[in-house]
């Protein structure tokens, strides 16, 4: 089956998460993605645990392999003028350039959008940085845990009487797909008008859209959003409950009175679920702590998948708190062929996953494994840029290209 972006040429100057998420989606849709890398300025994800056999190696990381499958790697030293020259030739070749360095980095190479437009007048360049390219905090360096706190997500994660927190670089994961949508729009505009486009996407600002309701509650009603554990103002019980086994949990969300009756049915209609004051939402909300205790007394006697399946069979929203093993073995993911294994020279069989979309008439499976550093250098220089063997080997010997 065809791929939707067959033939799209992408120059990938991304690293870490937000940028690589954009180019991974493009690769899964058939684009040729050339990732520019260098051993001296490694993509930090190449140094992330875990590694194959517990042995550190820039080509051995599982997380890197999952996030970068289907891309090609060009080893290139951008500190050398010859390296920049090669990058500029690739910028003239590509349809799309994606980068997520600190603002100003590509300009230092003479590769700002205005400069690249001179050599490729309809290039689309996506710059996605944490705070955007402009503004007083544009150059304020921060990591994932800083940025999600800055956007406001920490403030609404946790319990009201304990520290706020957030444990994943959430704004990266949100900024990437928002940037993708804008990029697709820019490609549509180029098709209509023949014009290129520069897109400056702020990951923090994109992420703030996911807090729109509480931003409005603040600006309209003056109310400050607070973290509230797993509680809901419109559902009870509504929480994660300990199940049979070691560190095993299942969530249950009773959102209607009918679901409450169905929930009681799953438990065999014990007397406490029949209490008249628990037949209404307000009644259940009033006694929510007691409810949580009672629910857990029951879930503790059952495995999490058993709880989920019995609740779902009765129409009650419930789901296993899936850890890494559960996600890797999830029957739904398996049925939809979400994961794929690829042979990898240093990892052996590497697990990766496709983008979260299937099409009726196109293929979105992963196109290949993740590249080792500089793996496609010869291919890019000879097949894409048309260099002779002598030419590219001279660059290799001079240390301009390679790994």
């Amino acid at each position, binding site marked *: 089956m065809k791929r939707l972006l067959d033939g799209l040429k992408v120059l990938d100057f991304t690293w870490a998460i937000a940028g690589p998420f954009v180019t991974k989606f493009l690769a899964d849709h058939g684009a040729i993605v050339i990732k520019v890398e260098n051993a001296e300025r490694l993509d930090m994800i190449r140094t992330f645990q875990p590694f194959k056999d517990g042995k550190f190696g820039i080509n051995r990381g599982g997380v890197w392999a999952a996030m970068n499958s289907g891309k090609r790697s060009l080893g290139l030293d951008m500190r050398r003028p010859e390296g920049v020259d090669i990058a500029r030739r690739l910028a003239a070749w590509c349809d799309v350039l994606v980068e997520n360095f600190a603002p100003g980095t590509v300009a230092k190479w003479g590769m700002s959008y205005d400069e690249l437009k001179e050599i490729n007048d309809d290039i689309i360049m996506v710059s996605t940085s944490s705070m955007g390219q402009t503004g007083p905090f544009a150059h304020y360096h921060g990591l994932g845990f800083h940025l999600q706190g800055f956007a*406001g997500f920490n403030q609404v994660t946790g319990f009201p009487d304990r520290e706020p927190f957030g444990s994943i670089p959430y704004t990266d994961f949100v900024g990437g797909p928002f940037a993708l949508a804008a990029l697709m729009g820019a490609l549509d505009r180029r098709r209509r008008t023949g014009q290129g486009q520069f897109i400056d996407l702020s990951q923090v600002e994109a992420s703030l859209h996911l807090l729109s309701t509480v931003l409005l509650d603040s600006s309209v009603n003056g109310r400050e959003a607070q973290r509230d554990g797993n509680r809901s103002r419109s559902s009870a019980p509504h929480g994660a409950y300990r199940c049979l086994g070691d560190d095993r949990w299942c969530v249950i969300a009773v959102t209607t009175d009918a679901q409450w009756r169905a929930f009681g049915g799953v438990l065999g209609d014990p007397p406490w679920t029949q209490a008249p004051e628990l037949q209404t939402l307000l009644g259940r909300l009033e006694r929510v702590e007691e409810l949580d205790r009672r629910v857990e007394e029951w879930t503790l006697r059952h495995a999490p998948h058993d709880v989920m399946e019995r609740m779902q069979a009765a129409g009650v929203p419930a789901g296993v708190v899936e850890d890494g093993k559960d996600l890797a073995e999830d029957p739904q993911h398996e049925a939809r062929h979400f994961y794929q294994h690829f042979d990898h020279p240093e990892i052996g069989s590497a697990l990766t996953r496709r983008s979260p979309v*299937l099409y009726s008439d*196109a293929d979105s499976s992963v196109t290949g494994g993740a590249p080792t550093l500089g793996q496609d250098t010869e291919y890019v220089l000879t097949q894409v840029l048309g260099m002779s063997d002598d030419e590219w080997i001279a660059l290799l010997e001079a240390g301009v290209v390679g790994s």
Partner: protein
Amino acid sequence: MPSDDASTLLPPHRVLDLTTVVGHLCGKILAEMGADVIKIEPTGGDTARDIGPFIDDIPSRNRSLQWFAFNASKRGVTLNLETADGRDIFRRLVEGADFVVESFKPGYLDSLGLGFGALRAIKPDLILTSITPFGQTGPYRGYEATDLVLMAMGGFMAENGYPDSPPIRMSVDQAYHHGGFYGAAASLTAHLDRVRTGQGQHVDISIQEALTLMFDPPIQNWIMTGAEGTNRVGPQMWRGKVLMRLVWPCKDGYATWRLFTGQPVGRRTHKIIDWAEEDGQHTGLKGTKWEEIDMMSVTQEMLDEWDLVFGEFFLRHTKEQLVEGALARRMMIYPVNTVADALNHRHFAAREFFIDVDHPELGRTFRYPGPYWKSPGAPWRSKGRAPLIGEHNVDVYGDEMGMTRQEMASLKAAGVI
């Protein structure tokens, strides 16, 4: 169909938006790029209108901030797809549509005779995008889902919690939006192929899959090391054998900062010690050679002792003092912003990120998050607040489809619109 208008990323592609709260964000993204998005609600209004908070805390279907937040820039009509007339009108709308976006339970549109095959028969190159919790196929496709269920089954909750608490979600619903932004990206990807080949698509988005993308580390840890279980460490992270603090109480809230040791990053830590000493705090850590300390050899006792010093430093400063000092000293200390902090932040003000949107029905304007991307010549553009119930019925059914007022009155009486 497409105009040559270069002033927006998208021309006014016609998008029929049938989504529930599960898929609202998708159409909003497309609308603010330039698409003409018509939100089709059941008669009486989308059930998301019952979700609070409400303007002035008055519960009413035309005052839901959940609704306004994710349906801005769309036009709105009401249509009862469970009537034959309603389905007939919908089919006529599909003839002129470029995209249909929906988030019903898999199989529901088929049960109405409006599944992909039926819609494709009307409009051969239609793109139908379905945004659902688990996708259109697989054993969980019919499962009941809420934000809590998806945050559990997508891997988020196992990575969030305090050591002595259950796994937790964020207290503001998040999961559905991950389907929304991938829905927008994938719909347009299919469109780019359609303009080359003339072929439409059924685009099948799984929110569970979208969430799972964030959890490569625990998946790979299981695959490569056999490690399983939840990772509930609160405002801390594992580093070597110890739990390192990331969130610090300060004078007026919280800030984020982490300790760096070893080469080459350990030198960063001198800056906070120097700052503390300048402020008159006796740290006792002035001579510590942070770049020579291997984090793998640090014990929890050592870390706890240092944390007393760092903890005091943060408690002596406000968020604003910390940020100003960090900017001047090129350090990584960030405030944990409250929602109001974010709304009033000077960085967002300089980028004109928050925008004031008119609510003429109330004679007021409200502050919304706005352009999160800048694209010179073809900017992000708000088309105004979300529609009230049936606000554009006359525009769409009367002016565009040519129904008479009498026909519309009949349809209204029959519960169709």
